[in-house]
């Protein structure tokens, strides 16, 4: 145990370099900075925005539109006594992001039940989505006014009818049933909520797997490149302890790195979403709870076990790939197959339902050990415990096989003779 701890300490010290600490600190600061900037932009977008208006009609209807916009937290800068072309130039020189032009005769047209037209001119001073939010709100206000006006017309012509019933004779009320629980929501809303809640799992897994694997591969490759491996293999410590120490250290440092990145990512996402997202999350959380779509302690433990096993599989695989690497540079190439193995199920889980793809494709995807953690949250929600247990057992079997294989490589000549050179024949040297 003393020897193992000695080796473990060395492995951790080798991995935790100044470069790593600086890189992590920089990432947090960068995420935080972007998050803060995004938060300010969101605040600006949801705050009072300036709109220029040219009301050439000056009727009750046109004033109603401008009053509606003012109540939607827009500051209206009225341009008066100018032509449309002049107003466009004036608004261009100011801070307005939008110019609203209400033509003469607008109110009369509405009275005569003729289609009326207003014009909006958006000034694209940046291409950010948040910056373009103003015109969307104007459209919303106009849509609301359309509703009010059409209701008024219907009411004047058909006083006995409810305009809402006339415009929408069929009303739908959506319910979602998950097992024996029911809640009022649409299926697409629930699917969206589940996928947004599960979004972090693949990202966390991808980060940890890629970080940890890179570290293990590099740790083995660096031992080869720095010619320290032969000496290490002749000291009195079990070869399995060497493997375990390298995997444990890489797993630990990879986990810490991933947590740091996730912390930064959360700060970044918090900045983008702001208070509106928090409010929406709180509402959707209630519906999800009503449907039983949340993790209890057992759920979190299963999810944790699945992520942990996936990390172990990645580390064991990385250990074998590290042996094949000749030096640090080739180790960087070796990480590619592992990244593909993580990315394939990640992208498939984003765009397709694994249960509906053709059987050969499904078998291929399920054969990739990293697929199972991506499916765990969905399977937990849907109560597919067979799939969950199958996935856990499968990952455990793959991990055991890989560790036995890695231990065999480390216990034989292959640790020194196995090499994989891209573009050249596989060779064994001594």
């Amino acid at each position: 145990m003393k020897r193992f701890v000695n080796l473990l300490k060395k492995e951790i010290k080798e991995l935790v370099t100044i470069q790593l600490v600086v890189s992590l600190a920089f990432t947090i600061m960068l995420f935080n900075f972007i998050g803060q900037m995004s938060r300010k932009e969101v605040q600006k977008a949801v705050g009072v925005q300036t709109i220029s208006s040219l009301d050439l009609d000056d009727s009750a209807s046109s004033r109603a539109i401008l009053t509606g916009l003012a109540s939607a937290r827009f500051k209206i800068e009225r341009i008066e006594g100018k032509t449309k072309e002049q107003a466009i130039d004036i608004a261009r020189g100011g801070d307005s992001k939008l110019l609203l032009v209400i033509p003469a005769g607008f109110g009369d047209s509405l009275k005569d039940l003729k289609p009326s037209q207003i014009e909006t001119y958006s000034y694209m001073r940046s291409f950010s989505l948040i910056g373009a939010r103003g015109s969307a709100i104007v459209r919303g206000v106009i849509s609301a006014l359309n509703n009010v006006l059409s209701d008024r017309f219907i009411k004047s012509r058909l006083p006995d009818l409810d305009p809402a019933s006339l415009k929408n004779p069929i009303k739908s009320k959506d319910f979602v049933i998950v097992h024996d629980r029911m809640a009022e929501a649409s299926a697409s809303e629930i699917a969206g909520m589940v996928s947004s809640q599960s979004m972090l799992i693949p990202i966390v897994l991808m980060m940890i797997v890629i970080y940890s694997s890179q570290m293990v591969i590099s740790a083995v490759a660096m031992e080869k490149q720095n010619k320290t491996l032969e000496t290490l293999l002749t000291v009195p410590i079990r070869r399995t302890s060497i493997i375990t120490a390298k995997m444990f250290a890489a797993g630990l440092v990879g986990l810490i790195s991933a947590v740091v990145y996730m912390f930064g990512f959360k700060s970044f996402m918090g900045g983008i979403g702001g208070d509106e997202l928090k409010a929406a999350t709180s509402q959707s959380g209630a519906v999800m709870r009503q449907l039983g779509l949340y993790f209890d302690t057992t759920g979190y433990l299963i999810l944790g076990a699945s992520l942990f096993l996936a990390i172990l599989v990645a580390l064991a695989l990385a250990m074998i790939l590290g042996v094949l690497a000749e030096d640090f540079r080739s180790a960087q190439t070796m990480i590619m197959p592992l990244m593909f193995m993580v990315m394939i199920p990640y992208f498939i889980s984003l765009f397709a339902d694994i249960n509906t793809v053709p059987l050969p494709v499904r078998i291929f995807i399920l054969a990739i050990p990293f697929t199972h953690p991506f499916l765990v949250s969905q399977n937990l929600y849907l109560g597919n415990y067979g799939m969950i247990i199958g996935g856990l057992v499968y990952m455990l079997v793959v991990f055991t096989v890989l560790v036995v294989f890695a231990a065999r490589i480390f216990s034989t000549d292959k640790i020194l003779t196995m090499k994989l050179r891209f573009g050249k024949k596989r060779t064994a040297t001594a």
Partner: protein
Amino acid sequence: MTNVLTVKGLKKSYGTQMALAGIDFEVRAGEVFALIGPNGAGKTTTLRIIATLLTPSEGDIAFLDHDLRKEPGLVREKISYLPEEAGAYKNMKGLDYLHFMANFYALDSEEEKTFVDRAVAITELGDRLKTKVGTYSKGMTRKILLARALMTKPVLAILDEPTSGLDVINALEVREIVRRYVKEGTSVLLSSHNMLEIEFLSDRVAMIDKGRILDSGTPAELKEKHQAKNLEEVFRSSLR
């Protein structure tokens, strides 16, 4: 004199390529036994097998009363190996590296300190041991690696080209250190291209070529047998 190491019928092949075609030799307690031969003769393969890095294809190797193939873990406790192209962890300070390596062999912290003190004396690097190994010259690195190999006073030190790449002064110092530790009881299995070094250090020598031992004996015996002035002539004579 008792044998520390006894090798019989040692063969090693990589696929169809035969690296060792059956060699026999023994290393006695307190002696320096040297393997000399051209590149690819099988010297490093032999040393790597004795150091438990490679497994032999055939043959018996007894280290003290241990079967090297069956008890490599026990053998590693009592040997140390200095590869020809060895390195140390560049991000570690010299002293930390010595502590790290000593920890594997020491029973307690007191013994670890004894090992490290011994290594510090061997390196003669003083305060430079408080700096990172990555900043050392080749000679300094080789010295710290030699110190690592000898600090535990192993029963058998396996040294592959111990003065490889060193200048004359450093090479002389390394040879003197090896000689000193042999006097204190460590046996040495050595490989070198440098016949002068072999003559200075070795008690007995084996000439090896194409995986076979051509001749062996003390330098004096070999010179007399081949009527040669030095080991280089002995070697050339053996190859004929």
